[in-house]
């Protein structure tokens, strides 16, 4: 048995410095498209190329709605020039009008995870949060199997019809106040699968969603950021980049 102790010590500290400092290691995030400048005569074909309609054109620039991106890389691979891409991971966003989380969420929180039809990757990234690299316990986040003990409901997957009933039951079983977090492109916008005859277009179709973390799958750091947003320790990211200027463009928030 002593060998486990020795080896444990020998492994040293692996845990990321995030959120105190940014994480600089390679390969922690797939990054996201950010839009911006793009040759005007090619914008139309870029918009066409994206299978989930991430891009739109505004004021001579390409704008990316990152909530929809499913990381197919078709806007950067096999195309000239590639669209701007940033290796960020702070993707946790708050749905409009739902940022008042209040006091009950300022200390440690318990999270109930429900798989509503995910592909396995989002769930695997959630699991990574418990490994020494991310160790979310140090930040006061705990996974609980029981909805009765949960403050936050973390949902992955686009919500299949067969899971709708179970998901609602879990939500109803949670004590108030409670918050819902949609993790991954599928949970946020339906991803590659929705909307279809067996599948909703994300968690918002079924439950009131507070925090969204896009990405297919979002890396562990992005999920961590989402959790920190949920407890008010980090500011939410902009859903659309570059962020729209609503007055000037005559857009309405949706």
């Amino acid at each position, binding site marked *: 048995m002593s*060998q*486990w*102790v020795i*080896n*444990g010590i020998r*492994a040293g500290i692996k845990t990321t410095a995030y959120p105190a400092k940014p994480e600089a*290691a*390679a*390969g*922690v995030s*797939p*990054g996201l498209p950010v839009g911006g400048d793009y040759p005007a005569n090619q914008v139309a074909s870029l918009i066409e190329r994206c*299978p989930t309609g991430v891009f739109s054109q505004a004021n001579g620039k390409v704008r990316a709605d990152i909530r929809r991106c*499913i*990381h*197919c*890389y*078709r806007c950067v*691979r*096999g*195309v*000239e020039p*590639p669209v701007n891409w940033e290796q960020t991971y702070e993707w946790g966003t708050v749905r409009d009008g739902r940022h008042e989380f209040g006091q009950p969420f300022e200390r440690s929180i318990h999270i109930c*995870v*429900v*798989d*509503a*039809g995910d*592909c*396995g*990757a989002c*769930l*695997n*990234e959630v*699991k*990574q949060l*418990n*490994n*020494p*690299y991310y160790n979310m316990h140090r930040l006061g986040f705990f*996974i*609980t*199997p029981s909805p009765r003990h949960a403050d936050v409901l973390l949902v992955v997957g686009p919500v*299949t*019809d*067969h*899971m709708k*009933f*179970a998901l609602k039951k*879990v939500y109803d079983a949670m004590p108030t106040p409670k918050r819902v977090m949609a993790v991954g492109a599928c949970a946020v916008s339906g991803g*590659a*699968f929705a909307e*279809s*005859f*067996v*599948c909703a277009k994300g968690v918002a179709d079924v439950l009131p969603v507070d925090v969204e973390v896009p990405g*297919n*799958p979002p*890396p*562990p750091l992005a999920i961590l950021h989402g959790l920190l947003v949920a407890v008010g320790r980090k500011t939410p990211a902009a859903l659309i980049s570059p962020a729209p200027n609503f007055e000037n463009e005559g857009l309405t928030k949706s």
Partner: protein
Amino acid sequence: MTAAELKQEIDQRWPGQVHCPDFGSRGSPCEVTCARTALPELCGRLFLEWSFSFTGLIVEEGASEWQLRYVFYGEGDAGWVHVLVTAPLAEKTFPSIVKFVHAADWHEREAEDLFGLIFEGHPRLGDFILHDDAWQEGVEPMRHHFDPQAAMRHRKPDEDWRPTRIVQEPGAFVMPVGPKYSGVTESVHFLLETVGEDVIRSTPRLFYKWRAIEKLAEGKTADEVLLLAERFAATTAFAHGLAFCQAVEQICGANIPARAKTLRVFLAELERLRQHAGAIREICESTALAVATAHAGILEEDLLRVSGELTGHRYLFGLLAPGGLLCDLPNDACRQALEKSQKVLSQLNALEQRLRVSSSFLDRLEEVGIVPPRTAMVYGLLGPIARASGIVRDLRRGQPYSGYEKFQFDVPCEQEGDGYARLRILFAETRQSVRIMEQAVAALRGGGASSPLSSATRASPLQFRAGAALGWVEAPRGGAFHWVRLNESGKIARYRIVPPSFANWHGFHLAVEKFAFQDFPIMLSTFDLSVAENDR
């Protein structure tokens, strides 16, 4: 058995009922047309006597008739054998082959649920993919006349729905588990029937996550469907994407550049290594061995980062394209990824050494969840699970694709079929994966850094044409088979995925029954099952 012997045997046994053409070249299937009456016996002989593996049942609805395709493959030069049965659309009854080919059990249940076919002699049709408590009777979603846009079909969830009970002894009760249970788990429901300590019957109820990928694919282009193929079970995204691409490439007669093939092998093995490290972490976690879980977790994350650094994506999305790869990878980057993987491997080896002498850990794995070789055969189990039960089958060896025939590697095998054997197989396979990666990097020439549109990794644009083909890979969890039919305009007419977890879930109850409740999570983790992969 050689191809010639097989043909002779068939011609003698079922003259006039079964037509067996001459065998073509290796790798191309031999399509045996069969009368309905002779079907169970022919399939039974192939499976039980001539040691063919059963891959799957593919149902296709033609303009006027059904075509049922029972796919088998053998290790010898007979290769792929497709047994075809046809019938007019109005006739929906076929003989069941499960009496002889137990591995076909769930395939027939699926066809019954999705196409409304009836398999005479099958002991248990009904509630399978379409849950009875949610769907109305008579819905056949895979039929052409089914309109996915139309709103209807759902029942109000029935709160009083109760599953069938099998054990009827006094004192027996059912323990329902799921679909939401435990910490971070995939959604699946288990009915554990018991009279006390031991699980007597275990019935998994799956398809809570059914996203109807096969229906969604119809009418789409190959490029669009590739997105689904990669994403329906993303922990093994590359393997499934590759199987799909290979099917499409075969229809189009594409010539894949050598460099793309080698890179595909490299990436497929990187994925296997990462997935196995994850599976090892799960096993350590299920036995509550915290330090080992942490160690394995570190190694898994290391490999995710290696994948992310090399390809941009931690689960290898967006690399494949029908005809090759979407982008080239620089040789240097591949070499660095290999070096890091080698480091991870040496730590995995050290972890294995420590686990092998931790008696409290071994006590929980040894002689639990035993699947004897004969049963593994009958159930058609696949991948590491089968290899832990003495079945030395590996598509990379038996039916090589993407140039695997050029690589040196061993197919590890164990005889015990218990949880510990399955763990040892996982460790042994990680060593073989790195061995293959080393050879792949050594074989990489030319290409590399320059242009993202390098012709070194992408065949010239594919000529999509009507046709059908089977693509297969040895995915980390076992053989994965993708059947693709393209119509005249090059769109997908039929897509059928037979993932390894479909076969392994079918056999999972074998490992659980007669063992105590507290061993259930351990058995589940040693089987390394994916619900997403099974549910599609």
